[in-house]
């Protein structure tokens, strides 16, 4: 048995589904952010797997994974800053209680 493109893509799909469940079903805003990080990692696996198996000599897929990593780092920094700012104002990071813009 050999490991082909399908194995990596199915691993990526399972990881993305786990992250999607976490992002939809959790109270804690930090855990939601962690789930989003898991989803971004899953897409990175898919990018690199396609790059390895479809165009092995052309590194375009890996370049896209690099940009995704840079954007993920920026997103985490701003997201955690927003969470800490909300905690200062409301003393909670429960996503169900952060409802200032809900009517």
């Amino acid at each position, binding site marked *: 048995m050999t490991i082909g493109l399908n194995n990596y893509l199915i691993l990526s799909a399972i990881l993305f589904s786990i992250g999607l469940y976490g992002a*939809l079903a959790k109270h804690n805003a930090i*855990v939601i952010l962690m789930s989003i990080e898991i989803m971004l990692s899953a897409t990175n696996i898919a990018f*690199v797997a396609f790059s390895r198996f479809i165009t092995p000599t052309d590194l375009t897929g890996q370049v896209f994974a690099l940009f995704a990593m840079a954007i993920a780092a920026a997103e985490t920094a701003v997201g955690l800053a927003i969470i800490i700012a909300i905690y200062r104002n409301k003393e909670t990071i429960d996503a169900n209680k952060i409802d200032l813009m809900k009517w």
Partner: protein
Amino acid sequence: MGQVIAFWIFAVAIVGAALGVVLLENVFRAAILLITCFLGVAGIFILLSADFLAAMQILIYVGAIAILVILAIMLTRELSIGSPSNKFKIPALIIAGLFGLGIILTVINTKWLINTTTPAPTTTSGLAVKLFSKDGFILPVEIIPTVLLATILGAIVLIKDKKK
């Protein structure tokens, strides 16, 4: 054969750690398992002969993002509350399951144009040419620092204590 064993070890480690992140009630343990998950993804990158990306994964995700997440957990003191599931637990499970099933069925039923050329042993110089050459990705490479600068400024402004 070694590659097959390594793939399954990494795959089981990644999926188990990710399940732990979304199922555990203790936020700090979830953060530690998130680090395990990122390390497993770095191993998968090495199996896919993307050595530079594996190093970047460890530097950026394990080194920077995990530390940020743990710092945020400590600053917000929500350890006692933990991370319970909300009332959408069952619908979220159904949506995520259907989504994963759909993607897996699509992947299995698609005929991919597999190219069996062996990739280059190291990718660093190839990536450098791809990123910085004239007909490469030089414009996105120029835009990324602007995004990161805006991020740093935004994070500082958001965190700053306004009471003084």
